[in-house]
């Protein structure tokens, strides 16, 4: 039932899109047909109509955008964009002892994509330009007064304030987040690795070969390793999230307990783990637990053990140790949140429970936990996805060690997908597989978020609890 509904929704969305596109095209046609010569010339020279109508602010802005984009596309972008199909063909050569670099596949792909974005932006601005002309003509036709330049300028701080506020952030995200992500998705379909390293070597498109490699379960294939690492990633995130969650609430309740003094002191001590940069504290802790570290050293000295505990060597122990150390990192954070929330639970709920003779444990299970789970559901979800990608804890503590011959691609037993990906990019410069793993990380994160989010009781429906 839900499925068909979703399907219908999707179909509707697609239909909507096409009908919108059709309307748009029609409007452009009408604009051209009914427009005067100013409007018609504006189809080529942006803002021309506005300029002649005296609206030089918007006219000049449109014109400047056109000139800027065209200049970028033709003086810089085109030389890259034209080669994007092959990612370059001219090899690097030697002239005497001098090196003459040929095409750089990396830059062709990167700036080719940037140019593609510029072309899309050009079309979008062209569309805005057409619409502006249409609006101006309609206003004139209806005998109303055109807004002045001053009005235009003022609107940027009032009705169009959103555009002023969002222009820079959106542009920034496009260039420094969207472009790189699109780039890396493209890399997943190329053979960019240590043997095809620009500028000395070219790389090229290879289709879905890398994905096949990820799901091939032979000896050299990545399949087995991928599944092993993925399972540990999911298990780790589960424990890291829920153990910290419950212990954090417990510690918060302990500190909040009536009769406990120096509440602020206890909190401050715990909170230090948030304040001290992790590369300092975790690198130190990793040495602490080493076979020859302080903990083993003292236990041996005091005769409690006669052989060092293999905290980082034994894979199972290493995983447990990581989770335990993560408690040290995670409890304070959860404790802070829980402290705030516990105060919000209406005291009369507890009062009436006490009158009914409920034990503290019953009150915790029946009042505190349901309330906390309800309120913090989405937070738990973000914590979980955050832990899926918790690079610092794993990398600073074990760097994915211990390694084993059963895993390929340099992966260790405690590697998460994210640390494995990091090793592939930094140590092996195996970008093609790193990009594939990156896409998989996204699929896993997005998949879990989507499923869990739909299962959560609606956040807005806060009445549901009372």
């Amino acid at each position, binding site marked *: 039932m839900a499925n068909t509904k979703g399907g219908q929704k999707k179909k509707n969305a697609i239909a909507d899109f096409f009908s919108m596109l059709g309307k748009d095209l029609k409007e452009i046609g009408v604009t051209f047909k009914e427009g005067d010569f100013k409007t018609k010339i504006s189809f080529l020279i942006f803002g021309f109509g506005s300029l002649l109508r005296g609206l030089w602010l918007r006219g000049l802005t449109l014109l400047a955008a056109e000139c800027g984009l065209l200049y970028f596309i033709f003086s810089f972008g085109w030389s890259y964009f034209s080669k994007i199909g092959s990612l370059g063909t001219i090899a690097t050569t030697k002239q005497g002892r001098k090196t003459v670099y040929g095409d750089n596949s*990396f830059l062709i792909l990167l700036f080719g994509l940037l140019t593609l974005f510029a072309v899309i932006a050009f079309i979008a601005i062209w569309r805005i330009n057409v619409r502006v002309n249409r609006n101006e003509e309609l206003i004139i036709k209806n005998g109303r007064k055109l807004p002045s330049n001053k009005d235009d300028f*003022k609107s940027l*701080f*009032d009705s169009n*304030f959103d*555009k002023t*506020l*969002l222009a820079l952030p*959106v542009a*920034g*995200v496009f260039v*420094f*987040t*969207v*472009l*790189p*992500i699109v*780039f*890396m998705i493209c890399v997943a379909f190329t053979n960019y690795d240590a043997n095809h390293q620009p500028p000395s070597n070219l790389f090229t498109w290879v289709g879905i070969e890398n994905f096949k490699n990820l799901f091939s379960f032979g000896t050299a294939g990545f399949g087995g390793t991928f599944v092993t690492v993925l399972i540990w990633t999911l298990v780790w995130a589960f424990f890291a999230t829920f153990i910290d969650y419950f212990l954090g609430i417990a510690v918060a309740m302990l*500190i909040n*307990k009536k*009769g*406990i003094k120096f509440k602020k002191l*206890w909190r*401050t*001590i*715990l*909170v*230090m*783990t*948030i*304040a*001290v*940069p992790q590369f*300092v*504290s975790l690198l*130190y802790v990793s040495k*602490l637990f080493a076979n*020859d570290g*302080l903990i083993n050293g003292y236990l041996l*000295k005091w005769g409690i053990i006669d052989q060092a505990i293999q905290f980082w060597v034994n894979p199972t122990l290493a995983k447990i140790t990581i989770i335990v150390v993560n408690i*040290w990192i995670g409890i*304070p954070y959860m404790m*802070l*949140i829980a402290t*705030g*929330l516990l105060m919000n639970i209406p005291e009369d709920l507890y009062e009436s429970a006490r009158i009914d003779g409920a034990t503290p444990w019953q009150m915790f299970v029946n009042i505190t936990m349901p309330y906390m789970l309800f*309120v*913090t559901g*989405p*937070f738990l979800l973000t914590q979980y996805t955050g832990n899926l*990608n918790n*690079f610092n804890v794993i990398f600073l503590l074990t760097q994915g060690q211990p390694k084993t011959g059963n895993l390929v691609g340099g992966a260790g037993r405690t590697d998460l997908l*994210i640390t494995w*990906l*990091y090793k592939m*990019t930094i140590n092996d410069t195996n970008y093609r597989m790193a990009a594939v793993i*990156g896409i998989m*990380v*996204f699929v896993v994160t997005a998949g879990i978020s989507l499923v869990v989010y739909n299962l959560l009781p609606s956040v807005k429906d806060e009445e549901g609890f009372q």
Partner: protein
Amino acid sequence: MANTNTGSMKRKRAVGNFFGYVLLILISLIWLFPYFGLLMASFRSFDASIEYGGVVDYIIPHTFSLDNYKFLFNGQTNYVRWYANTLIISIFVSLFNTCIVLCVSYALSRMRFAGRTFLMRFWLVLGMFPGFLTMICLYFLLKQMGLTQAGAIPGLILVSVASSGMGYYVCKGYFDTIPKALDEAARIDGASRARVFFQMIIPMAKPIIIYTALVAFMGPWCDYVFASYIAFGHDASYNVAVAMQRWMVVGDYQGYFTRFCAGGIVVAVPVTILFMFLQKYYVEGVTGGAVKG
């Protein structure tokens, strides 16, 4: 009857509190132990004739010395430069990120425009891509602009600020709790959107501004992966995390353990103090963010 009852209750509570204190003290010891070890190691000399500076199997140094701290500041390394770099990055990132986050949050919370929900969803999805994926790409983008190696500091600031818009979540949640009636009243009196934003919302958003700035300020102190990529072997552009991480991980630096500890303490103390002062706002921010989800 009632009296004895309260008496036993009191006794019960006293016993409970006693165990509570024991537990809290125990927890405090566990939580503070690594810092204690770090502090002690930082006072151990690295001068071989006095004591060994590498990893050892005892906590309390045999002789206390300030050698490590002297080493950091006597110009043998670029430590002061690295520290200044980190501080510059932190301050600028904190400043610019906060501005951007405020702008984005206001637009998304108060204004309704075409593509608003699409933008929010799109950014949410973008956030699920792992950041490392994009490092090499960002490196070459910055290189094209001359913002790597010697220009790594502005480069790092630029990248951090450029993508900060996506972190609007907590702040927008806070803005949502400010009643809209306030804006509307002001707008009826003829105030523009910009005026509402600057003269009404921002003054009311002090806790969230401090929270955003604090979180942004603390980020760069931990950034060693991307920062080392962008600095690309240019020693003077390192931040403390990149430079000091080498002391622990790279084999060229033998016996740098105590120097690492001292450097770590020098990094941790100011950040911790700042954090302690602003803790109230931090709590407000994370709690609000958690509930909003």
